[in-house]
């Protein structure tokens, strides 16, 4: 495995170059141990496809999504206006991110504050790379495996993207099995709306347990996710049922990187 090729926006600016796309890593992708693996898998895909991409590195800051959804509009707008200053300062036009919450807020909510960009979710970006033939993968190692995809609310219901992750997964030659609650009827993992950062309100079950139970009922080898928070919630849910030995929770990018031996 070769070393990751990562350049910052500042590097590009210093050498007078313009990247093809900005990879918005997000807080989970930067700091969370599990999500960092997703970040690296996606970077390996970008490297393999020779995508000239940049990251903001230390200049990136939380989009403000959890603050806004938890009612702190001031904090959200402070974050957003500062981020927009940075993004517009570099003349960023296209952004790709592996987090559906960053994707939603950058795509839909930054324009009202002066930040308009073409924003893609990493599954859309990977799908385009595969379609354009910039990367090729052999599904060999996944043949005969059962994969179920959990729709992230902020990608699916929120932004009507149900097909890109599935089209990517189909390239693995595995059996793609659907949960009853999928696509527009997909059940939340329980992390959205800032729930990730608080205790659940009193109830009789955790949302991630409910969702993991549904996924596990399909007896999959892999539960595929497209969101670092869903990934955490489902991983915990699988552990709740002591199934972590048999069932893996993996991001779509990780599966592609694995299949391509990247």
């Amino acid at each position, binding site marked *: 495995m070769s070393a990751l090729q990562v350049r910052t926006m500042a590097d590009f600016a210093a050498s007078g170059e313009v990247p093809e796309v900005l990879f918005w890593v997000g807080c989970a992708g930067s700091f969370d141990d599990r999500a960092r693996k997703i970040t690296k898998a996606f970077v390996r895909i970008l490297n393999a496809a020779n995508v000239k991409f940049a990251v903001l590195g230390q200049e990136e800051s939380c989009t403000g999504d959890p603050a806004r959804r938890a*009612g702190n509009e001031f*904090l959200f707008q402070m974050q957003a206006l500062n981020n927009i200053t940075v993004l517009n300062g570099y003349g960023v036009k296209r952004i790709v991110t592996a987090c559906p919450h960053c994707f939603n807020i950058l795509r839909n909510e930054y324009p009202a504050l002066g930040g308009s960009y073409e924003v893609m979710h990493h599954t859309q970006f990977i799908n385009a790379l595969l379609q354009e033939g910039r990367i090729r993968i052999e599904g060999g190692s996944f043949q005969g495996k059962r994969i179920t995809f959990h729709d992230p609310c902020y990608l699916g219901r929120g932004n009507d993207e149900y097909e890109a992750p599935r089209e990517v997964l189909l390239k693995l030659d595995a059996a793609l099995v659907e949960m009853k609650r999928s696509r527009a009827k997909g059940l939340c993992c329980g992390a959205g709306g800032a729930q990730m950062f608080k205790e659940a309100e009193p109830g009789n079950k955790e949302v991630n347990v409910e969702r993991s139970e549904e996924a596990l009922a399909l007896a999959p080898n892999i539960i595929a996710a497209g969101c670092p928070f869903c990934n955490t919630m489902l991983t915990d849910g699988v552990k709740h049922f002591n199934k972590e030995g048999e069932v893996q929770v993996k991001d779509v990018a990780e599966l592609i990187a694995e299949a391509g031996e990247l």
Partner: protein
Amino acid sequence: MSIGSIVFVLLFAAAVWWFARNAAKVRRNIALGRDEDRSDRPGERWGIMTRVALGQSKMVARPIAGILHIIVYAGFVIINIEVLEIIIDGIFGTHRVFRFLGGFYDLLIGSFEWLALGVWVACAIFLVRRYILKLKRFAMKELDGWPRTDATLILCTEIALMSAFLKMNAADQVLQARGVEHYVVAGAFPVSSALLVPILQHFSTSGLILIERCCWWFHIIGILAFLNYLPYSKHFHILLAFPNTWFSSLRPKTEIRNMERVTGEVRSMLDPSVAPPAPAPRTVAGAEVTERFGAKDVFDLTWKNLMDAYSCTECGRCTSECPANLTGKLLSPRKIMMDTRDRLEEVGRTIDAKGTWEDDGKSLHSRISEEELWACTTCNACTQACPVNIDPVGIIIDMRRYLVMEESRTRPALTGMFNNVENNGAPWAFAQSERLKWAEQ
């Protein structure tokens, strides 16, 4: 003009007047909300209304309830063509004035009969689902009291109206066959002839005239009464479903509306040369309403939030798909809508009584608890499930905004998250300078 005609005209005029008066109050209450432009892209809006309200496209996501509802809906809309004839007959003392349509008239009356039977059966099945099968979404506690009574009244009234319609037709056709004066031969009666004529044909002519007249009056008075019941009932959805879908949000479901005033405040914080925006208090119902961050009361929501509340017919599809509710949390999106409507009605009653709004010390938060608000994952399963495009999440977010920005009330862990975002630019306590560490490992 006969006495019957005079009584009819007076009743009809009174019913229309009373309905218009109450509908105007609903309109006034909806207008208590903040302004929001929902008139862009009209072509798209007509399309949504045609598909979702007229075409019932979201109803059939649940096929059994959906198809039964379409039968009742189609019956309601189409049988009301018959009401037009009843009104003309009532005013002029005629009998089946549209019979000049000939074969087409027979076809119309025949299909009304089939629809009436369909509505009767569908409403009976709806009652079975509620009270015998006890479907979870209809057995929930939030429907205890008036909401459940309301639902039962609606279904029983529809069954009674359809029964009267069929009985009227049955008596009419026996009278027609006997050549009784006034009962000219008109119409085809495939359902009532099979179900009711075998019984009614043994009745005397005078008895049948009594039955026919009673059913005719019951049917039309029933419909006028039902019309006037609508503004007091969840059943108002049969009218508001149309504007409510026309004014649907055309934006992605997970997009949250920007707060312009906060933008002004933040810009002035970031750049001291920019003056903060002056608060712009509004006058609603003769009283000045302070401008707030987020929603404390109905005045702080938009008129569309309030129209949503009046459009809700408490079907509970939202709640039955809500991940919080499914896992035993207190939150029920349907209850959010019911509470919003009930609070709005309460405010409206105060305005009616006093002529202007006077603070009653209560608000939306008197009905909706923090525990409900903090249980939402903003997943939008509720907005997706709603057959008339109601958005409970928007209300939840605006109420959270009020709690956080005006009352500094939040969950302890969220305070920590806010601090981290503010100080480190991440919801966790990691330094911004370490953002690129992952690339080094």
